[in-house]
């Protein structure tokens, strides 16, 4: 049998048998080379309580080349692209070793959530946020965990949010001016926040979401 297939099958089976760990690996379709991994957000972090899904692609010469992983769940983290889910982690690149497994790599991702490295960011905007105001960053990360990763509801949020809609803007990672700009066009604030968040709007950002696009979305 093909060594790669045997290895991946064994890894999937091992992961199934391990009932203690929170890490799971599931098939997307028939192929064992395209998988979805998921794990719990680590305790004591803004990601606590969330469940994070990772897209896994097994390359042809796995395990001699690293697996390709990216977050499916939106994560607010300096080393994860908030737009694409791309991950900046050494073991997914040059520090990969063939003895690493899917499970151990997922566990590494979990520990990446514990210890962000803003000096080597994947997402510069998020990293800047982290560097300038850690507590505000954590509020946003917690908020994202809640809305995208099924994290604890409003009661968990209560601690951070000190008063109504004002903080909602900050926590969705948005700029007050941007929200005000579209509110001025006569849209409801909650709706503006919802749309901007969904589009990952950051003013003149790399994704180049222009005002028309936002308005179009708001009118839907």
């Amino acid at each position, binding site marked *: 049998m093909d060594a790669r297939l045997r290895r991946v099958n064994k890894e999937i089976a091992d992961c199934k048998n391990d009932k203690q760990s929170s890490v799971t690996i599931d098939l997307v379709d028939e192929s064992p080379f395209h998988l979805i991994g998921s794990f719990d957000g*680590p305790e004591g972090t803004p990601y606590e309580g969330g469940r994070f899904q990772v897209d896994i692609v097994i390359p042809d010469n796995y395990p001699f080349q690293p697996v390709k992983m990216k977050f499916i769940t939106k994560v607010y983290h300096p080393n994860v692209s908030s737009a694409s889910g791309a991950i900046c982690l050494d073991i997914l690149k040059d520090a990969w070793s063939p*003895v*690493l497994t899917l499970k151990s790599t997922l566990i590494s991702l979990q520990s990446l959530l514990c*210890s962000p490295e803003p000096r080597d960011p994947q997402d510069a905007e998020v990293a800047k946020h982290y560097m300038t105001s850690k507590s505000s960053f954590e509020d946003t990360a917690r908020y994202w965990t809640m809305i995208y990763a099924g994290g604890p509801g409003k009661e968990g949020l209560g601690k951070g949010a000190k008063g109504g809609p004002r903080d909602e803007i900050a926590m969705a990672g948005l700029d007050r001016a941007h929200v005000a700009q579209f509110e001025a066009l006569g849209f409801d604030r909650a709706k503006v926040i919802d749309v901007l968040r969904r589009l990952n709007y950051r003013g003149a950002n790399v994704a180049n979401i222009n005002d028309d696009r936002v308005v179009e979305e708001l009118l839907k």
Partner: protein
Amino acid sequence: MSSDYEISDDENYSYEEEEEEDEMEVEDYDDGSASEIEVDGIGDDFKVPGGSERKVYEVDYMSLSQPDVEKIMATDVNYISGIFGVEPAVAAQLLRHMNWNKEKLTDKYMDNASQVSVAAGVDLPPREPTPPPPKASSSRQSSTGPTRTARRSVAETSKTSKSTKRVASPAAGVQSFVCPICFDDSQTETMALMCEHRFCSSCWKEYITSKVRTEAECTITCMAEDCNIVALDPFVKKALTDDMETWERYQELLVRQFVSCIPHLKFCPYPSCTNTVSCVSAATKSSLLTMVPIVACSIPTHVFCFGCPIDADHRPVICAVAKMWLQKCRDDSETANWIKSNTKECSKCQSTIEKNGGCNHMTCKKCKYEFCWVCMGPWSEHGTSWYSCNRYDEKASVDARDAQARSRASLERYLHYYNRWANHEQSAKLSMELYAKTEKKMEEMQITSELTWIQVQFMKKAVDVVFKCRMTLKWTYAMAYYLSLGNEKELFEDNQRDLERAVEELSELIEAPIDPETIMALRQKVTDKTVYVQKRNEIMLEDTAKGYLDGRWSWNATVDGL
């Protein structure tokens, strides 16, 4: 003594800056002095007086094949192996780790042999008294440090016997071995480096093949996580078994790594060429300010510059200026052309303005200055004759146009040089195309007329010379653009003009219709002209080369390294 040894920053060592010039067995391959050979042999017709000696614009160099380089490497390895008393394979890895700087390696090794060996991956790190117990579960790992390596040490290392010591010993007869990589328990052949991280042979083979072929990596570390032990050559060879192709690629990578470490060696940049050129005189950055080290490997068409990444002859311009010029061309040419034909500058704030419709009453968006697009004068002076501009000589508009002209001058100047530069390139290409057609005709003529093969070769020679000289001319325009005004530049431009005129005349001759009646006369004319053009080219190159040595050229821009 300056040296531009590129040191890959290796955390464990602090390299001193004052390092001795590398004495890489220069005598081994330096005495051959195979200076560039004039590509003639076509007869005495083209003999330029004093052709055999090295010209001032040429450089001493030597082409080495891969086995030649391997021989030099072996000399170093044996030397280190001898004085350190280690296996040649270990010596080779130590040298690779130290970027083939023998002196530095010797110093460091004598100072602290084990530290160097560990860093180079040829020895295990000293065992720490009691390593902290690895964390069992990872669900609650508080951030302990900023390192983002996978914190879990995967404890699936070898469970097999620890009896076999030393490199590459296939542990035969090990019972129930499950390879931690392929999870295959039917494998009997296993291999491990000195770290005893044991894996099955087929995984080793795949791993090394993947490293060598897809990552072009010649330093192959153990497959276990965070293990720094390097697979030495005998191990690699053994693991690859009968895969000679990968083994050869591995050897080539080793040679490349060596060549990239030695300042006076450079790999031929032409695709799939494995030759190396040694050029001692161009090994330092400062030497590149006074010479243009154009070399070729043993394949004569593989011409490249030893000093910079331009894989063509860029004489007479030195690397730094050539680079500056190419950058400028890339950045500016198209833009400059467009600006020139589509825009004007506001006569007050010099903003560049494109008129995209409407009337001639322009208002500068930046400074709000109002002016007339046609005469460039202030709009206020148009008085009552709105929308019609008939006052060419109004003082204000004359002034405005003068200012415009001044600001355009630098653009014009650049385009002057650029257009000529590009033109020579284009013409050179065209002459090659023309030659392809002519060649056919010449062959026919050889059959129909009395001319011998050697006698119809004059066309080829002429086209080659035209091509070569156009390349020289091309680069003289880059040089002239950056030369400061003065007598020297004037003399330079005189030489340039003479060469250009001669080249154009020869070009014209080549394009003349060929006809059996007049061929002998044409042959004579072309041959004479070719000799003359060659001579002019020589004068051009010689004069510039001497100018560098005498420090005669002064530049109107800051040149890197000056």
